[in-house]
């Protein structure tokens, strides 16, 4: 087993809370066995910012809420053989997608920003300006699930996914025998 070349994995957190990256630790001691089979490329875990070479598996947490998210996601699609969306944010927008519709407004993005920076009862923004520095990535009109931006090969559902589900998917993908999840393990929360 140790003679096989290690699978190269890249990960990214887009519009997510980093909870899915943390949930990787819920694999517990099985992580040791899994780590023998993989090495990390671009990932917040290694702090490598750019792809050093083509990767076997890309793991994406979070949906797309700004243009930087879209660029990162497209970069992952170009550089990864298999792209996996992990968690509800990547799959359907998740909590950030609340700004799409829950605001009950014709202009949900404007209303969201005004509530956050100007009108909110607890806002302490003396300038009364919505942040608009050119260095900030441009916000998209809506939060988009990853599958609306690029093709996603597999999805690991949950908020955050359980260690069992993540292990089931990663072990299956690494052995090339992933057949989908046990129905009893699927959760959207």
């Amino acid at each position: 087993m140790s003679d096989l070349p290690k699978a190269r994995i890249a990960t990214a957190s887009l519009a997510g809370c980093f909870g899915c990256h943390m949930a990787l630790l819920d694999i517990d001691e099985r992580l040791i066995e899994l780590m023998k089979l993989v090495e990390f490329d671009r990932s917040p875990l290694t702090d490598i910012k750019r792809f050093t070479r083509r990767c076997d598996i890309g793991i994406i947490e979070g949906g797309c809420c700004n243009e930087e998210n879209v660029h990162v996601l497209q970069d992952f699609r170009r550089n990864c053989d298999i792209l996996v969306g992990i968690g509800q944010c990547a799959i359907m927008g998740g909590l950030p997608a609340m700004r799409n519709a829950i605001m009950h407004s014709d202009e949900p993005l404007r209303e969201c920003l005004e509530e956050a920076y100007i009108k909110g009862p607890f806002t302490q923004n003396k300038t009364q300006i919505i942040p608009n520095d050119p260095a900030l990535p441009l916000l998209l009109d809506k939060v988009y699930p990853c599958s609306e931006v690029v093709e996603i090969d597999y999805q690991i559902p949950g908020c955050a996914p359980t260690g069992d589900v993540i292990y089931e998917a990663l072990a299956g993908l690494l052995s090339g025998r992933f057949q989908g999840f046990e129905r009893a393990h699927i959760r959207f929360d």
Partner: protein
Amino acid sequence: MSGFSFQIDGVEVTAKNGQTIMEAADEAGIYIPRLCDHEGLRHQGGCRVCTVKAGGRSVAACTQPAALDLVVENETPHINKLRRDLVGMLFNEGNHLCPICEASGNCELQAMAYRLGMTEPTKFPYLEPCRPVDASHPDIALDNNRCISCGRCVRASQDVDGKGIFGYVGRGIHRHIAANGPDLQHTDAEVTDFAISAEVCPVGCIIRKREGFARPIGERDYDDHLIGYDIEKKRDE
């Protein structure tokens, strides 16, 4: 009472005269997925999640009478694919953001997605309706954005409570559930009504105030077993 037998997925099932396919299946411990049907309410045949092939035709198992020697297909890959598409469309039409919904874990729509092995609620962009939330009643709130128009609350209020608080308004994609009054406060709805009880609304549309998250996520109805477990376990007994 006279009875007869027919087949569901190759299993011989006994039915009484006048029973629907679903009623006979329930008694035999065979679960046919359903969302708009609920024990104690009259059948509606609205959601079509209970679609089965009976004698080669697609029918709603909750309204189609069982018949002698009928051959019914229930859990086949083809029918489950149709069911996944139906459930996906129901997710698509509303604001079903499971991680933020109080009903998550108790939600039958979500549980149906689990049972059908769906890893994403819908393949299509959410339609994101912006219907107003009615929180006027002191004990009850209605978030119509999560409604799947199953009509269970309509039938429960009309037939069981004898109040007729809920009804459908609008047509086509605009059809939705509305209260029989300017808002819920101005109806005779009470939190003790059967229509308001946790078992009637399959999703997180009818909300009983001050009991949110009383049971934490992870300890809810469908966290331990698949939907339909209570019916399927009858078969083992």
